[in-house]
């Protein structure tokens, strides 16, 4: 096969540079073998260009295709999903590189590169990730320009410069479109990412889970309050309620419905029957949360909460839940009443049974202790206090608790007495249930770091577990046993408490958090945090803000007005670029003397004596002298003066010429 089209050296150079950058974007979540294949394909292409190797023939290409498809099937099993799709696209990109025979093949390679680069933004939404994608788009654009550049004299960098100019000029219009274009919700449900599990609170709790989270400084979510941030000890970010205990692991109970109707109350829906069980008192607290991807549907909020925006529901156990798992950074609005009473009237026997459930044959010593205390204290409050006092007296809060055996609660309460929040919450709920008080474990985060810009960042090491007990007339009351062991943990922050302990931040070795005691590093860290925060709020979460932002900008968000704004401003921008781009086409302004001489020529031309092309001023004047003897003297004088001023020593005086031309009488035909 003889290629009818030959790719030029600089075009191939940019094509391969873009190729390397785009594939590197996805390197993290691509199977290793695709990367190897990509390198081989690039080398092959270079060898083809040098004339050393031929392009692969049809049987070889079919073989490669079959190998790729088999590889993808073996790698992913289920071909539906974002990662298999991207892997398929990348392998198509790699193979198309070896099939570039015509220019249209090169176009396809470039378009694939654009698409693959754009999809990388689904995986990494950080500022640096976005910058990298932008860099890749620049390189792909350079490759596209390189394909059309026939001129080889102007250097290898010209395509890149051209691409940078294009991209730069496209920016204003892009920002305008980003701000104004309406967002439509998902048209159909898409396969979610099968990301490896990230660190974060899960829906089960066993000893050691939360101390593991203490090793990570990764961000969990950020909160912006409409007013002041409440005191640290009130910041209990409730995420999950764990009511089921199997002797070791606390987990959720799955019930499709309770006796009082549907379990979910979506934002904007009529309040469900059970909404009356919540007694909200005092002023509500409004805030918005930007949550990092968790791959889970549950959201975090202060008790007791109501969803403040679309796509969020209140559950029957008064938590918030998202319509879809949080696969990317997401923003949601919440209204919370910190002064509340829930389910204070009564707990149905069914519910009592769930919240009192304990596995048989576990932790006999703890059961005995609870029953003994129950006999001593008839009042539930007093019993709760007795247990908390126990913790306060003898227990130690540590990130590295000793391992526990089968009867974990017994061993913790009577032997080791060292634990992290999950040990305290778990054993507390166990004792309560054993004493006949309905109780459950709540998992979430506690506290957060206040940023100078007025928001709160909550990190993985803020993960926390506490308890809720049901008391007659009071309903569900939050009780945090940890607060009685280590009040500093709740009042201050975990850093000061555990910062020196081995294991804290062990999974985030490069985190700037480690150097927060060094002033300028801490400032730098806080500035970067602020940048990330605004990025999340304004770029990643813009669809939440769009309506109010546009209302502020345009006064109204009717489609007509948005369309007008888009067309008007966009048209203006394009016009500006167009003017700037096309102005150099206008010839340089004429010399004033030339202009006067041209005026003379025009005047004579109107009389039928046009100056011939290539006729000099002198020759022209002489010819006019012959054709129109009555003008001879004047025309000759003007042309002499023009010559003298323009090319001779005479001072340039265009106004003199203008006067002379004006005085010249028109030729009568």
């Amino acid at each position, binding site marked *: 096969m003889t290629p009818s089209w030959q790719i030029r050296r600089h075009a191939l150079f940019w094509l391969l540079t873009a190729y390397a950058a785009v594939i590197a974007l996805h390197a993290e979540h691509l199977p290793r073998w695709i990367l190897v294949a990509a390198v081989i394909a690039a080398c092959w292409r270079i060898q083809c260009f040098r004339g050393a190797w031929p392009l692969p023939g049809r049987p070889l290409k079919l073989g490669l295709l079959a190998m790729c498809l088999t590889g993808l099937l073996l790698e992913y099993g289920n071909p539906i999903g974002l990662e298999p799709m991207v892997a398929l696209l990348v392998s198509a990109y790699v193979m198309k590189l070896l099939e570039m025979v015509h220019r*249209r093949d090169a*176009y*396809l390679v470039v*378009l694939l590169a*654009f*698409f693959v*680069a*754009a*999809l990388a*933004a*689904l995986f990494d*939404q950080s500022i640096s990730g*976005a910058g990298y*994608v*932008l860099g890749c*788009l620049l390189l792909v*654009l350079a490759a*596209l*320009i390189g394909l*059309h*550049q*026939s*001129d080889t004299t*102007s250097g290898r960098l*010209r395509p890149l410069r*051209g691409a940078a100019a*294009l*991209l730069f*000029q*496209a*920016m204003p*219009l*892009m*920002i305008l*479109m*980003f701000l104004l*274009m309406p*967002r*439509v*919700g*998902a*048209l*159909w449900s*898409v396969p979610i990412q099968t990301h490896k599990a990230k660190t974060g609170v899960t829906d089960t709790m066993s000893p050691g889970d939360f101390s593991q989270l203490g090793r990570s400084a990764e961000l969990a979510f950020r909160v912006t309050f409409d007013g002041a941030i409440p005191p640290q000890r009130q910041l209990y970010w409730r995420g999950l309620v764990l009511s089921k205990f199997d002797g070791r692991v606390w987990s959720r109970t799955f019930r499709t419905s309770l006796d009082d109707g549907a379990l979910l109350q979506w934002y904007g829906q009529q309040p469900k029957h059970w909404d009356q069980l919540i007694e909200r008192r005092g002023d509500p607290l409004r805030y918005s949360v930007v949550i990092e991807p968790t791959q889970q549907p549950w959201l975090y909020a202060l008790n007791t909460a109501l969803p403040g925006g679309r796509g969020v529901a209140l559950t029957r156990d008064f938590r918030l839940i998202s319509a879809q798992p949080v*696969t*990317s950074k997401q923003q949601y609005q919440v209204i919370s009443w910190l002064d509340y009473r829930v389910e204070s009237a009564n707990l149905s026997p069914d519910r009592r049974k769930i919240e009192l459930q304990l596995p048989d044959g576990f932790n006999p010593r703890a059961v005995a202790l609870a029953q003994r205390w129950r006999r001593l204290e008839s009042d539930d409050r007093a019993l709760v206090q007795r247990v908390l006092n126990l913790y306060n007296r003898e227990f130690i809060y540590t990130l590295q608790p000793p391992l526990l055996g089968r009867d974990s609660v017994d061993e913790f309460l009577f032997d080791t007495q060292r634990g992290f929040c999950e040990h305290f919450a778990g054993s507390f709920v166990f004792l309560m249930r054993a004493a006949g008080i309905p109780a459950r474990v709540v998992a979430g985060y506690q506290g957060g770091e206040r940023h100078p810009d007025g928001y709160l960042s909550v990190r993985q090491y803020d993960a926390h577990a506490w308890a809720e007990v049901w008391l007659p007339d009071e309903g569900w009351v939050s009780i945090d046993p940890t607060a009685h062991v280590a009040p500093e943990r709740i009042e201050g922050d975990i850093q000061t408490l555990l910062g020196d302990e081995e294991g804290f931040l062990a999974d985030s070795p490069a985190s700037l958090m480690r150097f927060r005691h060094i002033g300028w590093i801490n400032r730098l860290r806080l500035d970067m945090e602020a940048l990330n925060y605004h990025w999340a709020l304004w*770029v990643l*979460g813009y*669809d939440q803000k769009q309506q109010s932002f546009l209302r502020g900008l345009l006064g109204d968000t009717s489609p007509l007005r948005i369309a007008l704004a888009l067309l008007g401003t*966009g048209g203006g921008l*394009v016009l500006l*670029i*167009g003017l700037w*781009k*096309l102005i*150099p*086409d*206008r*010839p*340089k302004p004429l010399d004033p003397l030339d202009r006067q001489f041209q005026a003379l020529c025009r005047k004579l031309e109107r009389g039928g004596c046009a100056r011939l092309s290539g006729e000099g001023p002198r020759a022209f004047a002489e010819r006019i002298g012959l054709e129109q003897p009555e003008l001879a003297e004047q025309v000759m004088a003007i042309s002499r003066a023009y010559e003298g001023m323009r090319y001779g020593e005479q001072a340039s005086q265009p106004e003199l010429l203008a006067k002379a031309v004006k005085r010249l009488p028109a030729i009568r035909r």
Partner: protein
Amino acid sequence: MAVSVRGFFQQRFSRWLARRLPPSSAVSLGRRNLFIFPSATGFAFLLLIGLCWLAATNYENNLVFGITCLLASLFVVSILHSFANLSGLTVSCLKVTPGFADKTLTVELLLRQPRSRFRDGLGCSFAGSEKVMAAMSGVTECRVKLTVPAPQRGLHDPGRLRIESIYPVGLLRAWTYVDLAIRGLVYPRPLFPDSYPPGRRTTGEGLLQGGEGGDDFVGLNRYRPGDSLKHVAWKHYAREQGLYTKHYGDVLDRQLWLDWDQFPGLDREARLSRLCGLLLQIVPLGQPYGLRLLGLVLEPAMGDAHRQRVLAELALFEIPNREGFL
């Protein structure tokens, strides 16, 4: 039917084009005469934008949405860049090199721009000619040579010049059809007669001697095996006009004539073709020659100007609107 419909529209289009872009010796490209439309790649790019939008919408990902906006915006801005690659150029025809019928004419175009802006991928073509690409890098002028087929003797109009470019991104094609009022001279297709007919006696002093062995050149004959190699007309052979032997005799009239009446019984084009072939054979001999056509006599002379004049007369014989070409 389809052909006639298409023909109808083509006619309408060329009439509209003639009104909109009238013939002119130099045309400046700009808003008035440039067309621009997405290329096939451009439509594929729009499809890509659609796909990115779908991904952004379905994953509710604002970053991908931003990239989609960037791609769309790039498309809009590249309209301006594609347009600017042609806009501001002035096209004129420098000269047309005449050619023989059934061969080609060479049209030399001049592309000028007021300032030395970088332009690339300027494709120039006439209907039926190959596209020639030009680039301007740091210059204000560039010349482009196009070869167009010359179908028949006379004045040939190669039609409108198409200038197009997809630079810089290939997503949009800007083009125009300019009528530079080009007319090229097409000489008759040369035919080489078997035997070179000698000049005709014109004056009393000149008397043709048919006999062999003189000193003066009389004419050419097709080579026959056995002819002396000394007499072979190598110059003609080198020009691939055939193998001839020079034929010498005593000629009194040393002036050669290309005469209309030399080929009785042939029609006009056949005669002109033979006269043209004869001319090509005579010129290398370095002797004066004249031309006699119906109603025209060019006295014998020599030199390049004379040769071109004779060729032009042959080309324009009984051709209307021939002013300015002689």
